[in-house]
């Protein structure tokens, strides 16, 4: 019985963890790109990386304060989006896919350069304690620990309630922004572009400008995802690589592209199901048959298969409406 109780608690923990929130944030951004605008951004992890390092380097190397560092993170994401968007947004969709995935890899390689060791920490990244203090000192919470539903964290510290409050607050804010925007005439033009770009251009809207705006907006959301991801832990270039982008796609498709709450539901489902798989396998399959590492690998195999099955059999995801599917026919 103890196992089940612990499992339940683990599920709760993972559902509210800042990492899950970071994935939701980045997935909301990807949903703005793909779900609402039809942009094949295969480099969302690059936006996260740019945001995280924009923040981390500003604090740890340039000694900026929290708000200035956030501004740098956002600015970096905007610049990244513009650099990516200008050459590719006039071209067919798969060009954007290839360029974004390539650019995200380039960013990761550059950040890892040992020549930049002093600034970015090279391959080992930036340890959390070099940038976290500017964030924790903003915390209005009293010292000590708080237990909610049997889960205890420090109010303010390394992996704390303060981070969780801010992370999920951001999620709520971004959900509100997408909700407002998608119902606005701006969002209508985006949907129009997803449907038929030429028709929208023939009606006097510069589809290019709208796509660039969408790319920037989603990119900024990704950058916040990167910052939130790095806050409770350390900054690691390899933690924001291609697998991260693919996971985000999985999340968006699972929850339902072009829906407001799809990314939220998708992220939580993604993490909870993965946890369930590995915990149950760890508990009930003897480690002589499957060790932890192999369980992890099999979980990934299942993720890959699930992605295939999802795209083929339920492309609208859990929440989506088949009529408003974001795949172009």
């Amino acid at each position, binding site marked *: 019985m103890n196992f089940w109780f612990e499992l339940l608690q683990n599920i709760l923990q993972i559902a509210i963890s800042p990492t899950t929130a970071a994935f939701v944030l980045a997935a909301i951004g990807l949903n703005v790109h793909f779900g609402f605008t039809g942009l094949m951004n295969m480099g969302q992890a690059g936006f996260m990386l740019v945001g995280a390092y924009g923040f981390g380097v500003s604090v740890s190397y340039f000694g900026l304060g929290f708000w200035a560092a956030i501004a740098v993170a956002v600015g970096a994401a905007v610049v990244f989006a513009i650099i990516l968007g200008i050459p590719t947004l006039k*071209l067919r969709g798969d*060009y954007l896919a290839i360029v974004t995935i*390539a650019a995200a890899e380039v960013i990761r390689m*550059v950040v890892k350069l040992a020549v930049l*060791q002093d600034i970015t920490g*090279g391959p080992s990244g930036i340890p959390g304690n070099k940038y976290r203090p500017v964030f924790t000192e903003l915390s209005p919470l009293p010292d000590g620990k708080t237990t909610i539903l049997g889960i205890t964290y420090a109010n303010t510290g390394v992996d704390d309630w303060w981070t969780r409050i801010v992370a999920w607050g951001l999620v709520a804010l971004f959900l509100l922004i997408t909700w407002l925007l998608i119902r606005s005439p701006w969002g209508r033009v985006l949907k129009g572009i997803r449907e038929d770009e030429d028709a929208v251009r023939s009606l006097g809207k510069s589809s290019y400008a709208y796509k660039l705006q969408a790319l920037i907006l989603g990119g900024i959301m990704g950058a916040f995802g990167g910052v939130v991801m790095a806050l409770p832990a350390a900054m690691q270039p390899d933690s924001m690589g291609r697998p991260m982008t693919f996971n985000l796609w999985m999340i968006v*498709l699972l929850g339902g592209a072009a829906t407001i709450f799809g990314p939220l539901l998708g992220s939580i489902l993604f993490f909870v199901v993965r946890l369930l798989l590995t915990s149950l396998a760890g508990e009930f399959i003897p480690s002589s048959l499957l060790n932890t590492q192999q369980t992890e690998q099999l979980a990934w195999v299942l993720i*890959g298969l699930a992605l295939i099955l999802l795209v083929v059999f339920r492309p609208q995801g859990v929440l989506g409406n088949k009529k408003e599917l974001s795949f172009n*026919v």
Partner: protein
Amino acid sequence: MTRTTAITVSTKRPLGVALLLTLLLALFLGVFTASPAHAVECVPDAATGCVQGVIKTGAGDPAAGIKLTLKGDGESQSVETDAEGRWAFAITAAGTYSVSVEKSSLPEGQFFKSADTREVEAQLNSQASALFPLTDNEAEASGGETSTTGKGEAASSSSADSFSWPRFWQQFVSGIRMGLLISLASLGLSLIFGTTGLSNFAHGEMVTLGGLLAALFMGLTGNLWIAGLLAVVASAAFGWAQDKVLWKPLRKRRLSLMQLMIVSIGLSITMQYLFQFFWGSGVIRIDKSTPATWTFFGVTLTVQSYIAMGISLLAIIGVGLGLMYTRFGRATRAISDNPALARASGIDVDRVINIVWIIGAGLAGLAGVFLGLVFNGLNWFTGGQLLLMFFAAVTLGGLGTAFGAFIGSMLIGMMVELTNIWLPGDLKYATALLLLILILLVRPQGIFGRKERIG
């Protein structure tokens, strides 16, 4: 293959193998994240961390056969540098480790410039590096004290490279080799894209599969030629099966190209972790013997490299001639041009696409076999890491044109190897990707693509 020591460089390797004038890579130590397909490679994951580096002589040539020992966390491991001077340790617990170089294993006339032992902070899921700069000038040599990897030292290491014509020539030929290997894979990618419109993100895994299968068959048969042939045949069969089981039914379901692309991403993830599951995450070597080298017009490569280049060239020419002069080739080009018209004019589109898959997968498998041989080993992510090079090559040449894919591959191969002369080694793939982005800015249809294709 044990998991703790990802690199199992045989200790039986004759020490007499002199300094190999092989790849003169930029003197950049430590990080090989961007450089797949090298023999000594440790891939960090959740349970593994890597400590690694490259040792080069004072002249900048890779120093092979140098013995290193890693101590810490209650364990001790030993390795030797490979033909390219690389070494790596895989660790399973984070902590402080000390890496030391055995002075007696240094090539004659080489001395430590600074230290022979270094302390390294290693973490799981990441790579740590340690530098052991050598010098051939005894006056510069230090006594060999212990030192902790300082940030400044790592940063200064990349400036030691310099340009020389022999080095350029060596890199140039390496570029041709890289280009030919990339061509094998990108030809298939291009053909598949041309006939089906699919940007196949699982193409890298087809390359990996070829190499891994070759290693498997090598273990079974012991003959490299037979193993390679079987691996290519098995890869081609996999391409056939993939199309029959997966892609053809999906085409019939009329999935959009974007959906198909995501399906290929799912397939790529699935295959990568299946490889890890069956082969582990370490480096697999197809041919475990020490590769012989051959110097030809001042260029030193392994004999296997020369053979690989020859066969690759033949295969590429064969496919090119086939596309130009056979009925199947004409049908393929007709489908690339206009599938509806091709179907209407009596071409069995599904059959042609199926053959394209067989050829594409076979070529990818061949590329995998050669990559594993040329770079002295491969792992589950070798193809995945090169995937973007394939895409870059295909895009550069013009999406969907086979000849363009070949030229694009050669350019990318050159780019990767030549930029190495001036830039830190871990940027060599980055420059190729930057080139891709620039090309799209100036000439989005690629070098040989027609503008109308971009649509």
